[in-house]
């Protein structure tokens, strides 16, 4: 067999292997909480501890909460930048931050204020994206949130901020199977 055929065959195998690797390695490295659980906590620090002790890795987080940034949530949740920490340590690879519609304009102005010097916000049809170096943080009001995820996600719900109608909508995501989670953390 000529030398070049051997080399080209090796390159082709290497190439196909790299494509297969890039599809399979990431999902293989994700780790999930077993058994599935729902936990109540009072702070972002506790939430961070739960994620770490559950050994979850490489995940998508869906966060139903009021404040993304500690600097705007005076005496409330979150008191630390737990998303930043989780992204930097590989716990989550992307986040959906879903806020009540009633406060959507406040969320936009808070994030424009915080991120304008660091990274511009990328606007989308449903809201905007913060391009964190640990992954995308998609921020949107509840009315624009459509859970189209074909994997188990980490869920965080700040209980007190939702109206009964909004609460029902979130619960329906779980009941209908649109949202499946191995670890739901409720902030009380």
């Amino acid at each position: 067999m000529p030398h070049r055929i051997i080399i080209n065959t090796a390159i082709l195998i290497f190439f196909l292997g790299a494509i297969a690797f890039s599809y399979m390695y990431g999902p293989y490295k994700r780790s999930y909480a077993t058994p599935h659980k729902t936990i109540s906590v009072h702070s972002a620090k506790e939430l961070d501890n739960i994620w770490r002790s559950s050994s979850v890795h490489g995940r998508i987080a869906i966060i139903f909460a009021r404040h993304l940034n500690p600097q705007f949530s005076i005496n409330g949740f979150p008191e630390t930048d737990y998303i930043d920490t989780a992204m930097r340590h590989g716990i989550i690879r992307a986040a959906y931050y879903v806020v009540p519609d009633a406060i959507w304009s406040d969320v936009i102005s808070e994030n424009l204020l915080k991120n304008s010097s660091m990274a511009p916000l990328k606007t989308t049809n449903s809201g905007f994206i913060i391009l964190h170096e640990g992954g995308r943080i998609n921020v949107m009001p509840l009315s624009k949130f459509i859970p189209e995820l074909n994997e188990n996600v980490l869920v965080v719900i700040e209980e007190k901020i939702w109206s009964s109608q909004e609460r029902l909508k979130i619960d329906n995501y779980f009941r209908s199977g649109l949202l499946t989670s191995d670890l739901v953390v409720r902030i009380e």
Partner: protein
Amino acid sequence: MNEDMNCTISEKNSWKFLLLILILATFFRLWGTFDLNEYIEDEAIHIPNAISLGSYGTTANWNWHHPQLSGLIIYSTISIFGDNPIGWRSSNAFFGTTSVLLLFLIARLIYNNSSASLIAATLLGLDPFHIYLSRTTYMEIPATFFFLLYLYLMLEYTEKKRNTLPLAGIAMGLTIAVKAYFVFAIPLVVAYSAYKIQRRSELSRTIIIDFIFSLLLLPVTVYLMLYFQWFSRGYTLNEFFQMKSDAIWELQKNTLASFANKDFVEAGGKPWEWFIKPMFWGHQRLSNIEEGRFLLQCNNPPFRLLALPSLCIATLYAWKKQLIQELLPPLLFCSCYLLILSAQRPMFSYSSTALLPFAYLAISRAATLYAIRINREKLIYSFFISAAVIWGAYMFPLISARLIPVSPFRPILSMVRYMGNF
């Protein structure tokens, strides 16, 4: 290849001279490099970034837009030598020095002229700016090294018919896995190679298939595999394309206000100034009014100002004599420079590192052409080489944070555009 010109430096002597230049280049890139046990300038970004990348697969300090190879290289040397100056800086010292050797080999293949090769290697080897960056962690040094390696292997394949195409493909993948400076230059070299082979009437289907496998599939594979740390965070290929698209989007949104150290961005000059105006800027730590340490950057004024006229001379000569391989350095210079000039964002002056090898190839060519024309080869070559050595030796204390008396360097220090403290 054009015929060997009337060189004053023989083949045997050129290797001896090269060895001398390499010793000097190594000395300037290593002496005292590991003494400063603190971060120099962007090392405060690069080193935590490399450690975070190696530990968690995530970049740090908002350095996610660029490919990851540079961070992985620094992380690997930190893993070997420890989290200390040797671990931080040894890879750049190696790549910077080896680039000098590669430039010499490339010049030999392009010009078939020992004098031009030696002058080009000397100019790069003793360029204070290249030495400065080789003593830190800037990714421009490995990016340029891998491109020079790619260019050399492609020239060996094209001109000498050596079987270096797959190795060139690997070097191409490594180049784009560091930074995007050579995105136009890379296909230009492929086009040059195809053109030369076609001129010899050897361009067959087999060669085209080899090109596709070695210069397309192989670099893509190398590039993808170097994201293994990133993929280990749970991502898939679709998310990889999304991340790349986000990176391009965000880089285009960068303005001067995006940079915390915008005074320093401006101090290095705008890209169009890099080869026109003499510029000095940097940091100092004065012990007293007479003594201090300096980390000065400059655009190597005595030589870089010759680059644009030399590029014109080298291009005209190559065009007139129909020496297609001699058009390569000016074309590569233009392809990289146009990318920088057309970028819709502020550029740091260290981006000029990618242009230096082609600028110095052109200067060395113009110098040899002039020397032959006036029949003063020995004089011109001695002048260039000794001027580069003297200038490099004079500037070295100013770029290496050694404790020095200020008075001998006042002429340079009086021209500094920006001087911060470190």
